[in-house]
């Protein structure tokens, strides 16, 4: 019937790690070009706007890097969680939890100025961790499906945040449902003058290296992989399943929380409804595109930063709806998944047999 057979590969060659995401992105762009045509625009013009506008000037380039920082964090958060098969779809909520903690700490008048930045970082990471530990504990203790709880908790946190912003946390100066600005001393230092390149970008790069170290070179990383790939065998080998899952969840949540800290301390200086345009969900696409490799997360995040910033320019210039960026994200995840088959399996064509 089918002429194609799949054969398990003994080892996947390294070049597939580079080629596959490129192939997936290429296929995505081809598929999405249909939408561009539907929108009545020229594909070449639209794509060149989409990709090149964010790289056209030095300022735009830096802006793209700044935009990539939260995506690196959420991509890493998803990477750590998925490696342990903790299906954390809740990076969005954990990001907001981190942002809220940072905004709260950053506005405290009673704290010494020098302590603000470290406290915001620690507090944001902690808040993200705690918010990720809720579904992790529900999973390990009560066997509640983590996909659903992490998803639902995003809504809980978002509505909870909005309730605060509409009530006790409303900025008394503006009267909008935004939190009060953080103190000047709490703002992340700028690394490059006259740009928005803030400390958070550096932190994101350090986090990528750190997660790589964790997963590749530590016993914890080894155990995370074992638990993720075969929890039963891991348990029989003496690895504490629940502990590893909880630690992975905590690390994942902390990383997502740091994304929120960066946005508050480096960009917005307050918390408001539009703080994250779905960075948590984009993190899933990024992590998958990077094949759950923390180093790969960085280029994947930059790629989506380019698309997200470029989409505005493309929309202004050609009239293609800005939401093409969202379609590209979803499509890239789907094509990447399909492409992933190629890493595990070799495709062989069957010669038709005699019957």
């Amino acid at each position, binding site marked *: 019937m089918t002429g194609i057979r799949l054969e398990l590969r003994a080892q996947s060659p390294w070049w597939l790690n580079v080629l596959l995401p490129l192939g997936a992105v290429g296929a995505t762009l081809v598929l999405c070009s249909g*939408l561009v045509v*539907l*929108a009545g625009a020229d594909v070449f013009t639209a794509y060149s706007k989409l990709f090149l506008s964010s790289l056209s000037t030095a300022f735009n380039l830096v802006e793209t890097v700044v935009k990539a920082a939260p995506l690196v964090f959420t991509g890493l958060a998803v990477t750590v969680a998925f490696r342990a098969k903790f*299906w954390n*779809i809740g990076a969005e909520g954990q990001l907001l939890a981190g942002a809220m903690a940072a905004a709260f700490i950053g506005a405290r008048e009673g704290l010494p100025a020098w302590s603000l930045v470290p406290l915001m970082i620690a507090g944001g990471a902690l808040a993200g961790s705690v918010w990720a530990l809720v579904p992790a504990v*529900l999973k390990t203790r*009560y*066997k*509640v*499906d983590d*996909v*659903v*709880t992490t*998803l*639902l*908790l995003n*809504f*809980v946190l978002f*509505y*909870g945040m*909005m*309730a*605060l912003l*509409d*009530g006790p946390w409303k900025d008394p100066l503006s009267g909008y449902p935004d939190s009060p600005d953080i103190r000047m001393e709490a703002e992340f230092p700028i690394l490059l003058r006259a740009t928005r390149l803030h400390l958070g970008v550096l932190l994101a790069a350090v986090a990528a290296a750190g997660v790589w170290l964790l997963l590749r070179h530590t016993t914890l990383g080894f155990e995370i992989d074992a638990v993720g790939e075969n929890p039963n065998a891991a348990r029989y080998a003496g690895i504490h399943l629940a502990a590893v899952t909880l630690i992975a969840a905590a690390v994942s949540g902390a990383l997502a929380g740091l994304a929120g800290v960066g946005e508050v301390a480096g960009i917005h200086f307050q918390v408001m409804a539009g703080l994250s345009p779905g960075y948590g*969900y984009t993190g*899933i*696409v990024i992590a*998958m595109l990077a094949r759950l490799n923390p180093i790969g997360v960085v280029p994947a995040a930059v790629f989506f930063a380019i698309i997200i910033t470029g989409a505005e320019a493309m929309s202004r210039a050609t009239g293609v*709806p*800005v*939401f*093409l*960026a*969202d*379609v*590209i*994200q*979803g*499509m890239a*995840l*789907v094509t990447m*998944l*399909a492409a*992933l*088959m190629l890493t595990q399996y070799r495709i062989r064509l069957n010669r038709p047999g005699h019957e």
Partner: protein
Amino acid sequence: MNEILSQVFQVGFFAAVIRIATPLVFGTLGELFAERAGVLNLGIEGIMMLAAMAGFSTAFFTGSLWLGVLAAVLTGVMAGALMGLLTVSLGLSQHVSGIGLTLLCSGLSFFFYRLIFGQPSSLPKISSFEPLALPGLADIPVLGPILFNQFALVYLAMAIVPAAAFVLYQTPWGLNLRAVGENPHAAYSAGVSVTAMRYQALLVSGALMGLAGAFLCMAQYNAYTFGVISGRGWVCIALIVFGQWNPWKSAAGSILFACIDALQLRLQASSAVHLPYQVFLMLPFVLTIVGMALVSRNALAPAALLKPFRKEAR
């Protein structure tokens, strides 16, 4: 307190519960068919969103609500087929495929809505479904106004619950479907095509999710907004766990959830409680998680849920 109670428990409240439960019943049963065949369809949130957009746009331009419903159903079916391609034919991770489908479908729904309607100053609206009083039945005191003065799609939902139970438990197709979800190898060796069953389940699943989307923006509301689904799809998945993969119990769960949702709407409007309205929006989600925690330990998930099937492998 009494004031609140009297505000809440009126005939109108219960009629609202039935109305709110309807899209959840469609979505939950749609998800149920997929899961009983062994596929977790996490595309539900996106499928509902895209189907709602397709249905609304069709109704807006043709002026026919039923054509809109048809468009929504077809959209759902196509999305279900895509889910089948990823999880059944290619055997990819159901978790990630579903999330991918949701991201893709919601992206498409935003994209096309903006493409079709641009950024108008006022929200495009349609004249949505009118309640259809069933002659005779609608005049029954109390029950009549609650159950029998509803939208046509509500009656469809009421009919679809027993129909789903009948199909699943009383027909050969339903038995084969459950067999595929419990032990695909057993089903295969009994001559059942696992691939065909799972595809069929996903198509039915997509169609029902399409109905859910259609109901939301053509009956419950009369417009499409980006927040029209806002987590209802995920709630449906939770309701199945809560309903132990049984159509009757899942439908009952939908009504229970609808009660909470209707209650929070009343409380928002009531002057007796002073809290930001978002607290009430949050409430159903919190209770859903609590509910899942209570029942998950002895959950009766289909044994082959999440497991791709290759006939050669064991």
